[in-house]
Structures are given as C-alpha cells and as structure tokens.
C-alpha cells in the first residue's frame, strides 16, 4: 500500500506541474457558464414550420388554432411562393399550405425530400386528428404511467450527463496514454519494473490520479448546476466507476502501441464513435441497437436518473455493479498485459 501511495503522490506531483489540472477546471467552469447564461430552459431541438393559410372566411378558425399551436415555432408567410422560397433557403424547414376548396380544408405538407414517410404520416394523423376531434369522434382509452414520478427533463438538464460522461468520466481515456508514453520514453516504466513497486500499483496510481480530477470536475458541475437536488451517493459512485472504466480503457489501448501517435488516433476515434450515443440520449426514440451497445449509452442514462430521479433506481445500481465488475476484469487484464509487455517498454 505504501508503494502505491508513493507512486500516486509522484503521479499527482507530475500532473500538477502540467497545465492539465487547470484545464480540467477551465472546462468545468466554461460548461457551467454556458449552462447558466447561454442555454435557456425552453431550448428545444425542433425545426420550425413555415405556414401560409389563405385568407378565406372558412379558414378563420383553422388559422387561429394553427397559429396558437405553432406559437414560437412557426414562421408565417404571405404566399405559397414565399413558403417554397423559405424552404429552399433553409433545408431544415418544413411547410404547411392551407386553402379551402370544394367544401374542404386542403392541407399541403411541403417537405424537403429527405424525410421518411413516417414524418408526413405523423403530421397527417395530427392534422386529420384535429378535424376528427372537432367532429366529436373520440377513442375510448386509458393511459397508464409505469413511473408516476418520472418527468421529462428539459434540454438544459439533459446536457449535464453528457458533460459528466464525455469529460469527467472519460478524461483518463484520452490522457493516460500520454502519461504512459512519456514514462516509456523516459524509461521510468522499466525502472519501475525493477523497483519494489508492483505493476498493479502502477496502474492503480494512474487510475486514482484521474479519479481525483474526474471527481473534481463532476462534483463542481453538479453542485453548481443542481445544488443539492440530486442523489449524491449515486452520482458519486457512477463517476467513480465510469472514470475508472475510461482510464482502464486508455491504459489497455496504450499497451498495444509503440508510439503515442498510434494510440492517440485510436483513442480520439473511439471517443468520437462512442460520442454518437449522445444523439440517442437526447432523442431516446432513436436508439439503433449498435448505439445502445456503446458504453456511453447506459452511462448517460444512469447519470440522468441519478440527477433527475424518475424512480428507476435499479437502473443506476445495475450500472454501478455492472461497470464495477467490468472494471475488475479490465484491471486484471490490464495488469496481465502490462506485466507481459513491460520488458518491451
């Protein structure tokens, strides 16, 4: 244990000499500032509609209902030509043109062309649904909520778990390789192998060092943005197991490469690929199997549950236990790998 503590102290000293620690703090502060001043509670990721309703007596009610529904998310124009021009200028927009002809309200949904049929079908159901409701048509239904306390988390709140995963949890993945190669080049790993220190001490020391930085950034962000309104124990444990996972991943990748360049390419690319799970996290209806298999997918949802409890405590604990088990396996595997390859360092 003493050897581990000595190695840890040495690693901490080394890291405090570099500007890395200040970078960790800078990122956390920047994130907090952006969250507090640049992102508002109402921010939504939806593309607005461009609407043109002909000035016809029969459409008065329809027009006011439509503008009320689309308040804030619609651009009202004065002709169909203007509507088309708006869509041509901005490929994210969709259009609605409404006129009254042959005793019917005719709705034309103008889309860009890349959209799937399900989008127009959905809008058709919405538009015709209003008409059906107006005619007094109803469905006999009963709605059950499996988690009564679950609430939709606003986009602003959803961003916190993304920071916690990509920055606080995975910081070691990107930087531990640099540590390993620096020590490789300086010959300190080989020197370490002939010292009383054990290989697992070497790995554990790196893990502990990044854990300190990870906890520092995570707790600063969480306390600043959420106050005390979250499950502290769960956030703490999740940060610990995820951070250890990230550092172990970085350590294992590093061992397979002879140069920092080679390892860094893989680490940057892996970080970019697993970052894709953020799309499914923000939009949970979009969850292809390949995305749900990425480790960052459960990480983000587990942090969300710990920060904004919806009643699924089991999910958080499953993650804590699951990642702990994976970490133990990775740690033994990593120790075995480093022992095996230390002579080549």
């Amino acid at each position, binding site marked *: 244990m003493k050897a581990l503590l000595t190695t840890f102290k040495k690693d901490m000293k080394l*890291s405090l000499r*570099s*500007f*890395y620690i200040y*970078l960790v703090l800078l990122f956390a502060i920047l994130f907090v500032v952006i969250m507090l001043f640049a*992102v508002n509670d109402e*921010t939504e*990721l939806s593309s607005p509609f461009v609407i043109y309703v002909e000035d016809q007596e029969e459409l008065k009610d329809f027009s006011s209902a439509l503008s009320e529904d689309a308040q804030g998310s619609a651009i009202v124009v004065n002709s169909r030509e203007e509507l088309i021009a708006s869509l041509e200028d901005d*490929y994210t927009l969709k259009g609605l043109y409404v006129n009254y002809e042959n005793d019917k*309200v*005719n*709705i*034309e*949904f103008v*889309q*860009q*062309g*890349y*959209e*799937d049929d*399900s*989008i*127009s*079908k*959905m809008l*058709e*159901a919405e*538009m*015709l*649904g209003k*008409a*059906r409701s107006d005619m007094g*048509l*109803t*469905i*006999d239904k009963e*709605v059950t*909520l*499996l988690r*009564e*306390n679950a609430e*939709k988390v606003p986009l602003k709140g959803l961003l916190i778990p993304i920071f916690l995963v990509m920055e606080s949890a995975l910081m070691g993945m990107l*930087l531990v*390789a640099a540590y390993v190669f620096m020590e490789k*080049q300086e010959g300190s790993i080989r020197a370490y192998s002939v010292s009383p220190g054990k290989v697992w001490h070497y790995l554990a020391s790196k893990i502990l060092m990044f854990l300190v930085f990870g906890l520092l950034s995570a707790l600063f962000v969480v306390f600043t943005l959420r106050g005390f309104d979250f499950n502290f124990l769960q956030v703490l444990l999740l940060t610990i197991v995820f951070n250890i996972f990230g550092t172990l991943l970085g350590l294992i990748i590093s061992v397979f490469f002879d140069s920092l*360049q*080679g390892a*860094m*390419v*893989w680490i*940057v*690319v892996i970080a*970019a690929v697993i970052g*894709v799970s953020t*799309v*499914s996290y923000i939009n949970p*209806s*979009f*969850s292809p199997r390949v995305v749900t298999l990425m480790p960052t997918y459960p990480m983000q949802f587990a942090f969300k549950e710990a920060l904004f409890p919806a009643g*699924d405590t089991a999910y958080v604990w499953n993650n804590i236990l699951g990642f702990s088990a994976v970490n133990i396996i990775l740690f033994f595997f990593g120790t075995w790998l480093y022992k095996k390859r230390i002579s080549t360092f």
Partner: protein
Amino acid sequence: MIKRIITVIKRDLISNMRDAMILYIILAPLLIALLLNTFIPSANSASFQFAALEEDTKLVRHLSDYGKVEAFSSVEDMKSRIEKSDDIGGIIRENGKYSIIFEGNEAEGIDTAYDNILLSFEYADTEIPVSFRVTEIGWEISQVALIGSISLIMLCMVLGGMLSGLNIVEERQMKTMRAIKVSPLTNAEFIIAKGIPGLVIPLLQSILILIILGLTQINWGMAVVIITASSFISLIIGFLVGILNDDPLTAAASLKVVMLPISVTIVGAILLSDKLQFLLYWSPFYWQYVGISEIITKTASWSGILLYSGIIIGMTGLVYGILHNRLKRSFS
C-alpha cells in the same frame, strides 16, 4: 530545398508506418462516415417507437406507418420493454378500448400524438372535411448527413493536425531537433515538411467523406478551396500541439483544448438563432462550417467561399504571427 522537404516527409512517413498509424488516421474518419451512412435513413424518420401485442396484427401494421414497432407476446414483456431507457409507448386494444402505457418521462405532447394515430386507425373510413397531401421541393440531403459530414471533416483537421504535431513532439523527445538545427534544413523547410501531411491528408479524406455520404452533387471547385483553406487550421493545430508542448502529456492536453472550439462551434451553429450566430465569428471552424454547409445546400457563391476561406487563412495567419517568436525560440 524540395529534396530536403521530401526527405523529412519520407522520414516521418516511415516513422508513422511503424505502427500503421498513418493508415489509421486515413481510414478512421472514412469508417465513421460509412457507419454514419447506415444511421441516416433512421435519423430522418419520425422517431416514434411503439410496443404492441403481436396477436393484434392489424394494429401493428397501422403503427408501422408511423415508426418502429416492437411486438410482444405478453403485456408483462411489453411493460419491461417500456421501462427501458429509450422512449417507447405501448398500445393494447381490447374490445374497442385502448390501453396506452408510457414510462412517464416521454416527450411532451406524446399522448396527443398517440390519440391522433389511434383516431386515424379507428376512423380511417369516416369521411372528414379535410384533405391532406404531401409535396416535396426535391432536397434529398438530410440535416444529419450535413452536420455529420462537416463534423467528420473537422475531425480530419484534428487528426491531420495531430499527425503533424505529434511528429514534432517526437523530434523534441528524441532530441533530434538539435541535429536538425545543424543540418542544411532551414526553419521554413522544416515547417513546410511537417505541415504538408497535415494539409494533404485532411483534404483527401474530406473529399472521400463527401463521396461516401453521397454528397457528390456539389461544386467541387468550391469544396476544394474551402477545405484547403480549412487545412491551415490543421496546420496551426499541429504547431500548437507540437511546438508549444515539451512532452506528450501537455501535447495530448492541448488536443483536448482544440476539441473545445470545435464542439462549441458545431453545437452553437445548430442551437443558436441566426441573430446570435455572430457569437461564433471568432472561430475559424465556424467559417469552415458555414462554407461547407452552403456548398452542400447549394447556396454558396464564389465570393462567399473566397471570403470564408480568406477569413480562415487570415485567422490562422494571425495565430501563426502571434506564435512566430515562440516558434523561433522552440526551434532554437
């Protein structure tokens, strides 16, 4: 001069080939582009997921018009599925009555959407005084493909810069800078030799990414101009990483710093309204984003592309100017 530059490039190439790194740098963004290509169709759909009982084939068929349907043999299985992290709502039809099951944290308005879907199922044959038709203006490139391609091109810039930068760090670590200093190679030749891979590789990758993502109906001349100009960002990243850092740790940390303006630019360009886009004018990545975006959406003009390219080169030139003395000191 050219011979000396080629010699340095060859030397780096051999060093980078040792662990096939150059191959990874070239292939990685292209593989991500292929992966992205498989996502694009589902990302352009309405993103609804439904759970239903497999025996109710008529309802399953109807729901599949609106999104992805998962059919279950029992209500219990259905409930366990609904409780998972993603958004999926369940619908059970029994004797003309519907039981709708949500987890509780689904997007706002989802219940109304379900009502409308069920109204269209239940009253499909009832005549209503409203007609609905769909037209298209013929634009087939989605936002996902656009943002994805620009993000990947930016990743190429980082990887290209990383290649140049880490090659310089290696020289410093191996103490070969002093040897270079007493060789006939001048500082300018050294910079050009170290910078060329960071300029050429991102350019080739960006072109391939556009092809992989099917974004071929564009003005290639404009694309080459803006990507070439953007490659200078890669060059500056390389020097920032390589020259200003003495060890791999700070070099890797610098790379992390570089990722920050890229992420801020992409997220800002998507989230900020037109009025607030000026907040991103400081970032050369923003001008790259705007330029490539306009080229893909076919709204670009030569004057615009030349202006954006000029701004990017001007900004990177300014950074180079500020770093000039530091660079000179580092070389010596």
